[in-house]
């Protein structure tokens, strides 16, 4: 089968594994954040700022931003190849999603590392 160049890796097992690993990472990150917020309620801007000023949090958040991009890329590509049958439309949508994801990635990085 011709390799699909708009897929993240094009390898079934690699996409499958990445999607599951990133899902777990994102889940763990969200749980951590929620736990932090609950423990520090009522949360102040200062505490939140201090939390994200921590180097480890910045690195982990960066990894999670990347995970979101990969996860969403695989997921949206799958959804489009399932439901969007006109090829041109599918190409445009997939490329748009990829650009949008990178736009968000850069924005997120800018936010996290400017603290």
């Amino acid at each position, binding site marked *: *089968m011709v*390799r*699909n160049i708009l*897929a993240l890796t*094009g*390898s*079934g*097992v690699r*996409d*499958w*594994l990445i999607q599951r690993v990133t899902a777990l990472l994102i889940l763990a990150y969200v749980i951590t954040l929620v736990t932090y917020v609950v423990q520090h309620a009522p949360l102040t801007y200062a505490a939140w700022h201090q939390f994200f000023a921590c180097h480890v949090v910045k690195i982990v958040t960066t990894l999670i931003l990347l995970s979101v991009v990969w996860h969403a890329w695989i997921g949206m590509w*799958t959804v489009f*190849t*399932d*439901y969007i049958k006109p090829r041109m439309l599918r190409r445009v949508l997939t490329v748009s999603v990829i650009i949008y994801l990178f736009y968000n990635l850069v924005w997120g990085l800018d936010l996290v590392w400017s603290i």
Partner: protein
Amino acid sequence: MSNTGRIIHITVYRFDPDQDSKPYPATYEVDASHCRGVMLLDALEYIKSHLDETLSFRRSCNEGVCGSDGMNINGKNGLACITPLASLPDKVTLRSLPSFPIIRDLIVDMTRFYKQYERADPYLQNTGDAPAKERLQSPEERSKLDGLYECILCACCTSACPSYWWNPDKFMGPAALLWVARFLADSRDNYENERLEALQDAFSLYRCRSVMNCADVCPKGLNPAKAIADVRHRMLDEST
């Protein structure tokens, strides 16, 4: 539910390629006690013999092992010959297997389904020299084939699979993948690498989303979704 004197209204979506542009419903009134047997297929035979001889469907063994009479019964795929009328309500709607091109009435074109089956390389492959006697296989090794080899190629599972609906040309579908699993599980086959290699792409195997419709409808009680998961684990084990 007893079939004595019971009237069942069976609606069949009819289609003759020489006359119709799309399927249309036709309803038949069948007295269940007039049928020769107690299964849905007996009611269809009754319709064909007494009400409308142009109604067309496939059937052969009459006992759920040849896989000819797969159809969509009140929204769920199954074999007419082992679906008791007593298990059905008084109004029954029959359609041909979803997502397969219709040839006529309940008869579908299964060409693509068979092609996907052939893609599974559904035959034992062994590079070794065959011994003069049988290849030995312990009862435990043999039992790994149970739940895999009994497939009758009726296509009920594949036709019920959303992933197959959207990508029938690329996703092999649960039936073909069940056959992949059957040969991977056979201790006498040593082509595991080649078999997995052929499923590397993002569609053939990996488009399965574990919707589980396949296991839900299989008239033989098999579980293709589990077989697919097993193949994935093998793939993961081999590639990491």
